[in-house]
């Protein structure tokens, strides 16, 4: 053999050989295929099956597609975005509506609003402005361990007001890792190390529901609402509706964290030193950052005052155009930092929920199976909130909105409820998850630090979930009527 230079063989650590018995390996790797076949067979079989009484053929088929998408979303059989695409192509295949109609749902306003918000968040991340804001807020901790926890919680919350919570978590995680290392905490070591990461994650969760910019859930819910023929909630309306919950949960999170986890550190001087060092490294605020700050504030004001008049998506896309006009970001940076799959998922979810609602399938389902068992609107609200919170711990919160909202909106008419009640309830409850890593990227990132274990978070998480439900019910009872959202 000639003496050629051996090529880089890659890091051998990135390969794992599954040494379990082959039948188990086959089952674990290919268990999805029989499920796909079963789902395909259900679709095929339902095509030739007459609908139950009171339900149209289109309604029955759209319900079957909806249930199959639920299974795909809940069990993560396919990536969320791919299920979203399937939700677009299945109805035309089943003869529920034409392909042209199905694909037109991708042109809906909420999809473009979400797209614009994601691009803005990517620009904030890429420019370093979000880091600057985070460090500015963290600088105020003053050597006190409790104060540092409060600052991390506050920083994560406030940043989640203006950018999606997963982007905030992704941005803050490296910073929290550096802080915990500076304080000489190791994964699975002291309790304060866990506290730092949970504060970051819970801050994102609590702040994420405050505005329409904290994640895709709210725009998705508004989109589904709009497609179902209801007047959509505006940017400011949403924030006013949920702000008491956010404030109450913010302080509750701080109390729960500091009660459930021991503060086993005297001083956080090292953390302060690192934060100051990072601030110094950033240097003076650059022109691009200044422009981006002005643009972000301008966009928020535009959404508040002109959102209804010129459209949320219009403002969103206009902001994106301005970003490129002034060369604040380039396309390559965006390609790497925007989760394009989410946009696909929302397009599919909005389309599917619209189909389920317009064919009368959701109404039929509610009237046949739910209404006979529900005796009052409050019972309904309480149950929806609990169901949403339980589901959102295990399933992506956007998927929970896509699953529950189309059906739940049908309750509104049956119980003479304002549709906004259902939308606010599901869109906010679906964002309130505190325990499991698969619930939301912010929690998943906190676990990825290896400082946390599920069993250590369960009790504190349960306490927060219970408080969230109580605050949600109290807000619905006493605050929403003041805003004109009546519950009979």
């Amino acid at each position, binding site marked *: *053999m*000639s*003496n*050629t230079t*051996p*090529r880089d*063989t*890659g*890091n*051998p*650590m*990135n*390969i*794992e*050989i*599954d*040494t379990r018995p*082959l039948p188990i*390996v*086959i089952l674990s*790797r290919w268990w999805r295929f029989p499920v796909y076949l079963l789902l395909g067979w259900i679709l095929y079989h339902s095509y030739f099956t007459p609908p139950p009484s009171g339900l149209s053929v289109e309604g029955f088929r759209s319900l079957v597609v909806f249930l199959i998408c639920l299974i795909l979303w809940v069990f993560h059989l396919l990536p969320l975005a791919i299920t979203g695409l399937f939700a677009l192509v299945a109805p035309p295949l089943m003869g529920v509506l034409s392909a042209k109609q199905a694909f037109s749902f991708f042109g809906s306003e909420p999809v473009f609003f979400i797209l614009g918000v994601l691009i803005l968040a990517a620009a904030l991340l890429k420019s370093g402005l979000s880091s600057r804001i985070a460090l500015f807020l963290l600088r105020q901790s003053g050597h006190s361990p409790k104060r540092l926890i409060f600052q991390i919680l506050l920083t994560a919350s406030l940043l989640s007001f203006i950018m999606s919570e997963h982007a905030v978590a992704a941005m803050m995680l490296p910073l929290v890792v550096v802080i915990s290392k500076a304080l000489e905490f190791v994964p699975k070591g002291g309790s304060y190390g866990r506290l730092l990461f949970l504060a970051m994650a819970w801050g994102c969760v609590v702040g994420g529901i405050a505005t329409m910019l904290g994640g895709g859930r709210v725009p998705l819910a508004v989109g589904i609402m709009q497609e179902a023929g209801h007047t959509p909630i505006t940017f400011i309306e949403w924030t006013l509706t949920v702000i008491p919950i956010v404030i109450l949960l913010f302080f509750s999170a701080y109390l729960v964290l500091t009660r459930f986890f021991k503060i086993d550190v005297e001083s956080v001087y090292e953390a302060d030193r690192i934060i100051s060092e990072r601030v110094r490294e950033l240097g003076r605020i650059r022109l691009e950052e200044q422009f981006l700050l002005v643009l972000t504030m301008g966009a928020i004001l535009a959404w508040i005052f002109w959102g209804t008049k010129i459209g949320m998506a219009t403002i969103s896309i206009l902001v994106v155009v301005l970003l490129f006009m002034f060369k604040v970001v380039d396309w390559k940076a965006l390609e790497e930092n925007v989760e394009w799959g989410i946009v696909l998922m929302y397009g599919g979810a909005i389309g599917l929920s619209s189909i389920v609602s317009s064919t009368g399938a959701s109404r039929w389902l509610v009237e046949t199976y739910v209404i006979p068992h529900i005796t009052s609107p409050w019972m309904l609200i309480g149950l929806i909130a609990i169901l949403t919170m339980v589901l959102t711990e295990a399933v992506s919160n956007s998927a929970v909105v896509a699953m529950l909202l189309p059906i739940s909106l049908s309750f509104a008419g049956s119980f003479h409820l304002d549709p906004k009640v259902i939308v606010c309830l599901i869109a906010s409850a679906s964002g309130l998850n505190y325990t499991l890593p698969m619930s939301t990227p912010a929690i998943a990132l906190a676990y990825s630090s290896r400082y946390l274990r599920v069993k250590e978070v369960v009790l504190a998480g349960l306490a927060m979930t219970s408080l969230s439900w109580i605050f949600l019910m109290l807000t619905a009872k006493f605050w929403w009527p003041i805003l004109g959202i009546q519950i009979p």
Partner: protein
Amino acid sequence: MKSPLSQPLPAEGKESTNTGLLKLELIASGINLGEGLPSPLTNPFGLIHLILPEGVSVSVQQASDKQQTPFTLLHHGKRFFLNFSGKETPVQWVPPLKCYHKKTRSGILISDILTVHSGLIAVHPKGPCRFGLSGLACRYCGSSRELSNHPPFSKQDLIEAIQTVLKETSCDVVHLSSGHVETEDGGIVWLTPWVTEIRKHIDILISLDLAPPKSNSWIDQSYAMGVDAVYYDLGDFAPHQVTGNKKSEEDKKRYLETIEYAARIFPKGAVLSHLVIGLEPMGDTQKGIDLLVERGVVPLLVYFPPSPHSPLSERWKMKPEEVTPLYTHLFERLVQVKNTPHWVHQQDVLLTPLEGRFFSEKSAGFHLALKKFYETGFGRKVRRSMIGIRRRLRVKHHPAGYR
């Protein structure tokens, strides 16, 4: 083209000699040549390739002046016979491959790149293999301390050479040796580009001769990148011996950890280790066999004389009939622990574990049937597919930063 192994032997003259023992004797003592044999009779490495009764393949050297051999190769018309003990046993002579004398496009002789051992293509290593370092001449690749200076060849040359061989005869495995290395990876990094190139162009099994690596992740790496079988040998070929030398003990410990782990990663029977026999008491070799078999490894018993100039030639005392119990023991132990004795199902310079059946009372029906199936074109495809599917199932690639 049909493999010579699938061609029937002459029916008449059925002999009563134990074929396994006959192969051992031939390997040990070589062969004399009768009159009027065809030319060229040997391959470029001086080996005469014969097929003994029951389809057993052997490569024999012409006996030197020092060796006294009872065997003479004769031929009457188109038939070949082995004359020994006053009787003639029909055998089949396999003409040397014509492609040995061909050259690649860059002008390198194919015989400088590889040697074909009935179904196994042994690629000549860059330096002497660990076997060659022991003082013995490695009949796999022709390497020894006095390395025959093969000119360096490129990956393209190797691919061309293998493809040329496959046009002329059927082969299952390409065998590459890392040579003598003392690197962390055991030689896998050096061999990776070669393996990748073979995988890219040729549908064939690949086996590697490697040194035990410092960490098991290199074993995972070798399996994941497409290696189908590995040979891990110790320098002194005596895994069961404790020498008292601290470094040797450390090497031995690491060697045992390596083979044990590799046996969990690779398919059954695809982790092999050579054991030289005839240089130590039989009891010690048997301990070595047990030690390897218990760990899921298939030992390959190497029995042939060192070159007369080698210092080891003084120590080599065992006669073929004396070592047959080792082959019996190996075959029976493999069957007992349900390991696969037929990964190396044709090897002409040593007795395969499956050929231990010639000395055993135990039935080898299932393994023989499997061997025969794997020697058919369809069987080869099935075998490669099964091995490939297993890899697809077992290997998980994680993004950077995993673990």
